């Protein structure tokens, strides 16, 4: 058992999160992608914790879970609000602000 696999896994997860962020238009998926990215960092931290034999990494990951929770609160509120005001969760429909705006 080597840490290499963990590293690989977490980097792949991080990347999947990034891809989801770029490729999808569903606000929920966007939000989950971000959570996935942060979670993959948690995995990385836990791995380091074990690699270094230092519990601090895990503590950081713990704090990070709290941060994720905070973001979740805001994100869910956002999604609800966006859906409520526009009846859609398609991020592409929110494009009133762009390059040159005349109004």
């Amino acid at each position, binding site marked *: 058992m080597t840490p290499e696999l963990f590293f690989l896994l977490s980097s792949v997860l991080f990347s999947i999160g990034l891809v989801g*962020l770029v490729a999808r238009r569903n606000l929920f998926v966007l939000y989950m992608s971000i959570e996935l990215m942060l979670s993959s960092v948690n995995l*990385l931290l836990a791995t*380091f914790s074990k*690699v270094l034999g*230092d519990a601090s990494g895990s503590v950081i990951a713990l704090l990070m879970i709290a941060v994720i929770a905070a973001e979740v609160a805001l994100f869910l509120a956002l999604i609800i609000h966006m859906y409520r*005001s526009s009846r859609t969760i398609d991020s592409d429909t*929110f494009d009133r*602000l762009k390059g040159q*705006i005349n109004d």
Partner: protein
Amino acid sequence: MIEQLILALPMAIVVIGAFVLMLLSKSTRFNLDKLNLLAVLFLAIAFIMQYFTLGNHTIAFLFPDVFGESFILDDFSTIFDMMFTGGAILTLLVNNDYIKSRQYYSTEYFTLILFSVFGMIMLSHAHELVTAFIALEIASLSIYALAGYHKNNKVSSEAMMKYMVLGSMSSAFFMLGTALIYGVVGSTSLTEIALYTSSHTIDEMTLLIVGASFIMVTIMFKIGAVPFHSWVVDVYHGAPYPVTMFMASTFKIAIFAIALRLYLVNFAPINSFWTEMLQVITILTLLGGSWLAISQKLVKRMLAGSSIVHSGYLLIALSSIGLGSELAAPAIMFYLLAYFLSAVGSFGILSFISVHSKKQMSYEDFKGFAERRPYMALMMSIFMFSLAGFPSTIGFLGKFYIFSAAIESGQILLAGLGIMTAFISVYYYFKLIAMMYFYPSQTPQKKLTINVSTVLIAVMALLVIWGGIGTSLIPFIPGADGFIDIAKQAMSSLK
């Protein structure tokens, strides 16, 4: 112990203020005016206390026995604190009329502002990456919420959505970087990191460099460097004026607090690695920012685009630091001061105007402004001069320093490009002046309103001028030299 408590007090007051305001939110006895005053009161006390701690820091860390070395106390952070609290005070006071004219403002507005100020203060004091990250998140999350404060406005909501999605994305990079650095150093304390970087060669620090670079991505994102800039214009546009003002001036500066600390101290040995990357980003930022700014029709969007350009100037200095310029660090500090004053002023005027008009101010709307409100127009011109780097304003001295630093570090081309973009910026800033002055007004002259907002804007305008031409020959009043001294003092305390 008491001494330490006193030093911690400004921060504590801000957060206590946030709590108090939060608790008062359901009380009917407090209207917006009073809440505003209360918030300003808290911030003002914090500001004054920060002012008095300036220059006599006998201890380096707050409660080292409890917090370890995660909360640093130095002039650098204190000066930043003063800018944050000052910026928040100005935001609140200048926009007093504005928020009263909009019905959607409620008490949470003040709470969120105070929370974000708290986050920024933490950010500038943080001497530990996780603390810094959390502080950044506090500030960011509050501002995400603030950006979408006008919820009935789809544009505002959209801005919030964009800001939140992209901001969280960039935060993930910060966290990733932190994790990687933790993996290398075994600690996230900046002290340890500095120790590590100074005792290893660049070749040994591959992972640390990767981690630090991911942290830099976040910083670049927050200051709006190209290609991480795309949110800036839209979010500045969508957010309500007070929030835009707060973001453009205060929050942007907060990012530099951590960026400079990391860059100048902890990552100093690996700076040289970044030089080329930074230069490319700088060039892109300067060009992209001015491209964006020049093609806008709304003044707010133009200012947003130009704020990207200003980040570009700061990046010039940042890369000069890596090349060993001695001027660059105080230059950044001074430029931040200059930009702070000018941006607060210009956005303040925009929001002041918007008190009575409900639409976004485009260039066209400024036609005849000088006839309607001659004093406002004059002050707006002063801020535009300063942003354009016209001499006799503080903006000129800021650019002067930045470009001197670039030349000192041998980045002639960057300095040249900077001057070119400054030239282009003259176009879009002076276009506004032209609109204000060159066209007759359709509506008659408005009466001169003297209230807190206008007085503060006038004070800002005077400071902008005084910071550019003020001389220290006049006793008791520090001139431009005073500002530079502050910048130098901040930087020298960093080492």
